[in-house]
């Protein structure tokens, strides 16, 4: 369901989930590392809203939002964050390695650019099965400098595969500004080299993202071959938990906060009368409650049994 209230709710849920994780890392309740997507919610939610529910999504390291937008359960996600047996990967994966094949979420990924060829393979599978399902693959601006990006676009184009390559361009790959490491002005231009039409969109406008993906999905589903969408956005927090963001200015951060995807959409809904302040406040409260429950579920879940360490390596 993708009513305006749903879109708002999903973005708010991602934000609440991410900010809670940030807090839990700071207080040592979650170990390991994490990459949070606060600021990029419109990409995840808009893109998934443009898909059909039997389509598949391939994610990257910054994947919590993608997963929630695809329909991931915050409780099982939080449990996975904490390495619990009730987590999506039974505590084996953690923040960067979650999947739910039942809902077509084919997994987040710790290898930058690692998901792209896998997404191509999934699209190949859909095509060979003669279904009209499609794949959407999330990746970052930085990932487009990996060989896998170029190999994947080429092969997908040659085989006319049903896949949307969805780049979340948040202007940085870790500390590296995009243009210090990328020879083109826009990632979308890179499609030209592979006969794939690329388009640049406002990644902080959830409706613009949804419409762009829905349009591309229709073409791709119809057999036009792959599409490439580049959504301009910004991550609010550090790259991962230990980053102090010395490579960018507080002014730049402030400018992007002024175009906050959630606030933008709320303002639009208020203006059009689709949601009023009371309803928005209620959704915010419900989302907070949902994350509270997720944390409670995760916290009270058992750790994996060390005796089962070697299970499930092989089928």
């Amino acid at each position, binding site marked *: 369901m993708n009513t305006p209230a749903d879109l708002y709710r999903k973005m708010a849920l991602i934000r609440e989930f991410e900010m809670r994780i940030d807090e839990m890392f700071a207080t040592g309740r979650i170990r*390991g590392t994490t990459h949070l997507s606060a600021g990029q919610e419109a990409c995840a939610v808009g893109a998934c809203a443009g898909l059909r529910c039997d389509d598949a999504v391939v994610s990257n390291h910054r994947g919590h939002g993608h997963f929630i937008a695809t329909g991931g359960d915050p409780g099982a996600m939080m449990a996975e964050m904490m390495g619990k047996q009730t987590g999506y990967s039974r505590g084996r994966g953690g923040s*960067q*390695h979650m999947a739910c094949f039942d809902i077509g979420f084919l997994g987040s990924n710790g290898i930058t650019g690692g998901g792209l060829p896998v997404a191509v393979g999934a699209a190949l599978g859909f095509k060979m099965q003669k279904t009209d399902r499609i794949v959407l693959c999330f990746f970052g601006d930085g990932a487009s400098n990996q060989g896998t990006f170029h190999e994947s676009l080429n092969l997908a184009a040659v085989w006319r595969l049903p896949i949307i390559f969805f780049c979340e361009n948040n202007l940085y790959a870790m500390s590296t500004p995009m243009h210090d490491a990328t020879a083109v002005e826009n990632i979308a231009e890179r499609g030209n080299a592979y006969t794939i039409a690329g388009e640049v969109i406002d990644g902080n406008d959830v409706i613009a993202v949804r419409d762009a993906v829905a349009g591309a999905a229709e073409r791709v589903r119809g057999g036009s071959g792959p599409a490439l969408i580049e959504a301009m956005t910004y991550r609010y927090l550090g790259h991962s938990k230990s980053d102090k963001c010395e490579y960018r200015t507080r002014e730049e951060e402030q400018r992007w906060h002024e175009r906050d995807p959630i606030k933008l959409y709320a303002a639009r809904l208020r203006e059009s009368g689709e949601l009023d302040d009371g309803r928005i406040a209620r959704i915010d409260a419900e989302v907070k409650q949902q994350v509270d429950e997720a944390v409670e579920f995760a916290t009270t879940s058992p750790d994996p049994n060390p005796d089962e*360490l070697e299970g499930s390596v092989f089928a």
Partner: protein
Amino acid sequence: MAEVTFWQAIRDALRDEMLRDEKVFVMGEDVGIYGGAYGATRDLWEEFGSERVRDTAISEAAIAGAAVGAAMCGYRPVAEIMYMDFLTIAMDQFVNQGGKNRYMFGGKTTVPMVLRTQGGAGRCIAAQHSQSLEAWFVHAPGVFVVSPSNPYDAKGLLKASIRDDNPVRFFEHKMIYGMKGEVPEEDYVVPLGRANVTHEGDDVTIVIYSMMANLALEAAGILEQDGISAEVIDLRSLKPLDVDTILRSVRKTGRVLLASEGCENNNAVTEVAMRINEHGFDYLDAPMKRICAADVPIPMSPTLEDACIPTAPRIAEAAKELVG
């Protein structure tokens, strides 16, 4: 001597070598203003600028390959791959080009490069950020494999690696960066292929490298309380391998425990065991034993991660069983 951390020792070695030889330069992902994911290039960009401390795109294959090419044209690049797990992407360039070019081209070129990388488990960051892939590289002809366990060795070995005319895979364990130790300010090298006896003993020889070398010292302490005297040999480089130092110890103790954080199957220490078998079989009083990581992708859960890799008590336990 000054007390410095492991990351500082790495940084200082890079700095010294860059000052000493203008052909030395550093490149990798976020090695500039960010100072490297684990801080080992901190402040170098400020001192040497973007020409000699190069931030790269996220392109591990090109990073390794560019180091090979620059090395063949007279430079001494030190390329950083952020996590050892990402070396799989750089593998062709490092192994097929870097390791082979000299021999394939009839010995007419040299590839004096260092591929620094951080690896190992212990931070709950799961299967794609925690591996120990030394064995892959020990298997590759034409490359050296170095693995320090403390600040002193880190600085001396990195300097030796940079000055060496061969491609060196330099492995830094993520759990050692904060470790402090005494490091001379004046120039010194720790030669490649020289193991270090870090604890002397008579009953059992424990052969290890990297982070495990520190755990083995802890294990030696535990064993001492049980009246077992362990000799700990920190290999420091896995290739070239210091077989003589190992054999000298085995002759004395007659018992060998090998430990590593790599997966058990085909682990780098199995090669060490084979060398002992070939050259020191007569010294052995008991079959050798090894303790390695389980043959699983490293799990995130702290409980499972801990169960997956050798710990000091488990090393001590294995040594105790060996001594019987």
